[in-house]
């Protein structure tokens, strides 16, 4: 489980750099436990919307509520956990 989680976190880092055009960053530059939105990488509300689309598209997890969104996007770890818990393929 922990391994799966690590894989997912690393996968998300690569996807984020790609879809948010963070071309000056490498996956190693992103701290999965640091503040994700409004943190040092300048990720903002438009990026959140872009991530929402990617998460639904790639993982089948919908995030369409602002309150839920704020919690889910607090850190990359929180995001990965949310995906893991809510993805259609998640172990029941």
């Amino acid at each position, binding site marked *: 489980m922990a391994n799966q989680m690590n894989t997912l976190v690393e996968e998300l880092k690569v996807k984020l750099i790609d879809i*948010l*055009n*963070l*071309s*000056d960053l490498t996956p190693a530059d992103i701290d999965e436990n640091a503040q994700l939105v409004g943190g040092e*990488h*300048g990720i903002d*509300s*438009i*990026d959140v*919307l*872009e991530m*929402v*689309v*990617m998460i*639904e*598209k790639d993982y089948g997890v919908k995030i*369409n509520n*602002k309150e839920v969104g704020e919690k889910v996007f607090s850190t990359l770890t929180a995001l990965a956990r949310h995906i893991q818990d809510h993805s259609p393929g998640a172990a029941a």
Partner: protein
Amino acid sequence: MSRKQIYINNAGIVSALGSGCTQTAAALLENRRGLAPLTLFSLLSGKPLPVAQVDSIPLDSRLPRTHQLAMEAALQAVDPAEVSIDAMVIGTTTGGIATTENLLRSGETNPDLYRYHGLGTVAEQLAAHFCCSGPVLTVSTACSSGAVAISIAMELLRSGQATRVLAGGADSLCRLTYFGFNSLQLVDPDGARPMDTGRKGMSVGEGAAMVLLSTQKQNSTMAEVAGYGLSCDAYHPATPHPEGKGARQAMAAAMTDANIHCTQIDYINLHGTGTPDNDRAESKAIKALFSTPPPVSSIKGATGHTLAAAGAIEAVVAGLAVSREILPANQGCSIPDPELIPPQKIPERHPLKVVLSNSFGFGGNNGSLLITTPRDLQQTNTALSRPQLQVLGAACLTGAGDLNTTMAALQLQQPVAGLPENSEFSANLPARKIRRLKRLARMGLALATAARENSGTKETPHDIFMGTGWGALSETHDFLKRLEETDEQFPSPTDFIGSVHNAPAGQIALFSGSTGANITCSGGNYSFEQALLSAELLAGDAPCCVLGADEYHASFTPLFDPSFSPHTPPADGGGALYMEQATAATRQYPCLQTSFYAQAIENSTVTALVEKLGGTAAIHQRFGLVLAGIPAADQPLATAQLRYFSKRVDLNIQVVDYRKYVGQFASASAVAAVLATAILLNRKIPAAFAGENNTQLKRPGILILGLGRTITAMECYLP
């Protein structure tokens, strides 16, 4: 200060509430809701969302839907017995995109089918129908377009350049806006509920409204447009300033312009989209200005958000409010949000004299209008004259690079047409801040930044005026492509925000903190001229930036731009000028002004141009070089016009078809304007333009002609 008063002498309106002032007034009094699930186009997946669709437009399948809506409203506003319309200012964000979407899906590659794609074609078809020969401007400032169009029309009237102007806005439903706003989570699945505690967003709508504005009051006069206010939040590309700072600024400017105090306002027609952020910010802005706000309501729960039409539709509704004594209700709100100003629950009938109408849009673009019963003021017939604008700094982008490399290449008689390198022109822009921007927005930012830097000043331009013939093609293309590829499920919200025509100008404001007017004009090959004309009409005492830019897109340019040829290398770029009002103390700077702007009607338009420039002798005396813009698509017409002009004035100075050097793209004239300022300052004509003549510029000015379907003249001269 006394000045010309401006009257709405007639109005046309079409929305989901019906067609015409009478139907609209009845619907407002019945408090009808015009929202229903979308049926205009079928969806590949998902349940149709509520929209405000117009069901009754007479179908003319040759024209895109926006054009049809605009025509229907215009036909209501213009009495066929009316002598003539001097000018038009039309706001639109969609143009022919609804038709383009269908053509793209069916794989059509015949460019002729896409001829109504451009935003400017909406106004052009109206101009042709109503034989309007004067300036025909297209404004695209997202959801404030309609209000901004009316504001520009007011200045055309005040300045004496026109006495009768048709102004308004039109937008149709299309996939781009339907899915775009939804991707931003700005659509309420239950239909818009402005000001409601549980509001979740807007309902996208469609419609059009036109007002016939005049300085002459008539028996038919519906209302007066007493003032306008424009501003830019310079805060976020798609979200309003949380305290409604720009909204407050626009409302306050409208009151100052009209010389009306907030205690005189009887009703505020809210922008009130129904998104949590907009309604909150707007209420805060009103509370900051009004100690006791008058009744307020948003009609967007009834009409939907008709985007570029909204400002015009609501100006007409404000006109109905004062002329027919209707206080419209805030349809869709059942539990008013206690944080906001409580809106008007039911329609009422009582006399209203002064209505404030708000329209805000993407790019933090704000416009407020004050509509009143015709006031009894001491009116003057004196036209408001404005100081000329001088160029303190200029920059351009061509296939050769920046202004210096472009001039150097022209000196070596090399063509400079081509595609400037993205990595080169973006090199000095902060990488992190431009990461989401594609080609056009980056070009705009690079140009505006360089123009200010070249001026040697650090002062932020207050107002931004941008012309672009085709807007952000990359974002529009990428949005539609991904929409289709993902069965309409996962379009990119970033691309939607970037796809609006005024996104680049909004980015410039965001970067430089420009909180004044933020205008984007899109009239094909004359977009830059329209931006310059708007600057001349609207710019205040502070410096402004006037620019024109267009991007080449491998899929879209060959389909949309009739001047594109597969036999010549693709070209794009643009030019920017950092300008301010000329003063006696700063005579060393070149001035740039539009001297002529008219729809081409045979040779008489060229004759009018010659007269406007002061006749043959004056032209010989004033100009040492003519830069002629000949769009490839209009070549036979434009060449004939140029031949007639040369013959008429017995021209013996160098005339350069500058598009041969800088390339065939819509805002090539922005490059020409920048080159003209550089030539004036050097007093030397680059070899490519000098021909066999002497390279010394022997006269104080350069004439930049725009030829083709429209004839324009810009003068660049040292005072």
